């Protein structure tokens, strides 16, 4: 939804907009183009994009860079669980190529504070792996996840990449407005 809204904003400004969705491999790839038909294609593509499964961020960023034939903006929306060294290298390469990059770190409240209870097996949505947890796990998890968020943010800033966190519990218009205002400033 947030990606669709961004595409709409960009398209309304008369700029070319494209999209690339990726999981383990890049899936839908629409090179940037202007016009309402392109916007419709982008929206339709986002609408049918399946979610879940393992994601290869590095491959996705590399493929997205290939789609950008001229300097432009690359907005990456992900949970960045797989922000590997390879993905960092790809980001760095795109920045050095003169592209304007923004990372939108999508985070749900459940990830920040899962509130595990006893007697539950949690199932990884990407891999399907089951792991038993207890309520005693909560504190350590919160600390590790907060560290992950901070590390991702530091990585982005270090590479000269704009970083924003998308909280799925906060209405998207408010977050989009805040992002655009920050960019305008």
């Amino acid at each position, binding site marked *: 939804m947030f990606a669709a809204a961004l595409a709409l904003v960009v398209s309304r400004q008369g700029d070319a907009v494209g999209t690339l969705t990726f999981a383990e491999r890049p899936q839908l790839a629409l090179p940037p183009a202007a016009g309402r038909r392109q916007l419709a294609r982008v929206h339709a593509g986002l609408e049918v994009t399946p979610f879940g499964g393992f994601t290869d961020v590095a491959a996705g960023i590399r493929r997205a860079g290939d789609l950008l034939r001229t300097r432009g903006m690359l907005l990456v929306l992900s949970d960045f669980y797989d922000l590997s060294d390879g993905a960092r290298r790809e980001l760095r390469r795109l920045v050095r190529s003169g592209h304007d990059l923004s990372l939108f770190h999508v985070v749900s409240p459940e990830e920040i504070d899962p509130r595990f209870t*006893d007697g539950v097996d949690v199932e990884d949505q990407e891999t399907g792996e089951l792991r038993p947890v207890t309520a005693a796990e909560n504190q350590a998890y919160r600390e*590790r996840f907060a560290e992950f968020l901070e590390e991702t943010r530091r990585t982005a800033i270090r590479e000269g990449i704009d970083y924003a966190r998308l909280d799925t519990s906060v209405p998207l218009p408010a977050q989009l407005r805040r992002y655009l205002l920050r960019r305008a400033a």
Partner: protein
Amino acid sequence: MRLVFLNPSALFLLAGITIPVIVHLLVRREARRRSFPSLRFVSGRETRAARLRQLSDWRILLLRAGTIAAAVVALAGPLLVTPAREARWGREVSRVVVVDTSGSAASAARAAAARTLDGAKQSVLIETRRPGEAIDAAIEAARRLPPSQQELVIVSDFQEGALDGVAWTSVPDHLGVRLVRVSREAIAGVTAPQVPAVRVAGDEQEAARIARSAVATVTGFPDTGPANVVVWGRNAEAFGREVSAAVRVQQPWMAGVVGRVRADPQLQDAFRGVPAETLGGLPSSWTPLVERDRSVMAAAAQSGDRLFVVTSAPPETLAFPTLLLALSRALVDRDGLRERLLPTRTSADSQYVERPSTGVLRDSIRNATETDSRWWWIAAGAMLWLEQRLRRNRAAARAVPAERAA
């Protein structure tokens, strides 16, 4: 105060307490699943095997075990023996009534037996043509009586031989013994005694007059209401001083009767000069009643609140057969009278014994008709209700993160 179980074999069901634990372990094999974005930061160090050994909610497990335990205890018939309860049992009476249905005494004996049932907490009626042979069965029946004062009542006309063969020593100490004689005048077709009955209920002078004449009617015995002593004399000329007293020995004032009889000067004359050996070795405290030939016909003795009259006279000569002659042997040691009241029958001439129950037999508590089971059922229900409430609360608490995950 103590807790007893009327059905203790049910306590074996306490092994059922292990059922909630087993169920708990089996149920825990399949944990609930929760979809989660990524396990990258979930350590999950706890293994499933380790979880099986854990109690997810020990309170629920305890309540389940407690529910089963309380239900089992309720089934086992718990009874809390309190002082108040023991006192109530001490006021209640249960009876085993042996009814002699032999010959013409049957209908009158049944009627008399029916009267003995009044006021009893529980009664067992045994009809037999040979009361003496039914005593063992009566003792066995008494073992199943509820906690209370227990009595063995024998209703008979007590013809000679009626209680032959009774092993009185086998009668438990706690079991009171009462013989209810069906009088001959109450038996259809039997001629009433020649000498009218005399109801003794008077002062000392009147009692003495009874002893002299054997024909008197006195009413209004002090402090006790209508008297219950019947003094029979068949024929004053034939027997001289013969008097045989039949008593209901539970009446304390009966003790005074003997004293009055003994104080009677004519009675004193009767046995003055009787050689000790003639008295058959009776203790000097006994008042012997002798016939003209100076053979001992009957003897009476007072012991505490009891009056005992022993007679060797044939039953048919006395309208009211009294105590067993053998009882005299038990009365030798009067200090231990209550404990040694069991006579051994050695003579077929007379038979009559009566003694009260000595109290509630502790073993009889297992026959109690009341239990405290309902309180244990209530406790089991309360624990079950609490367990269900805890389960609902836990389910509600788990539903919150599940909704958040959705």
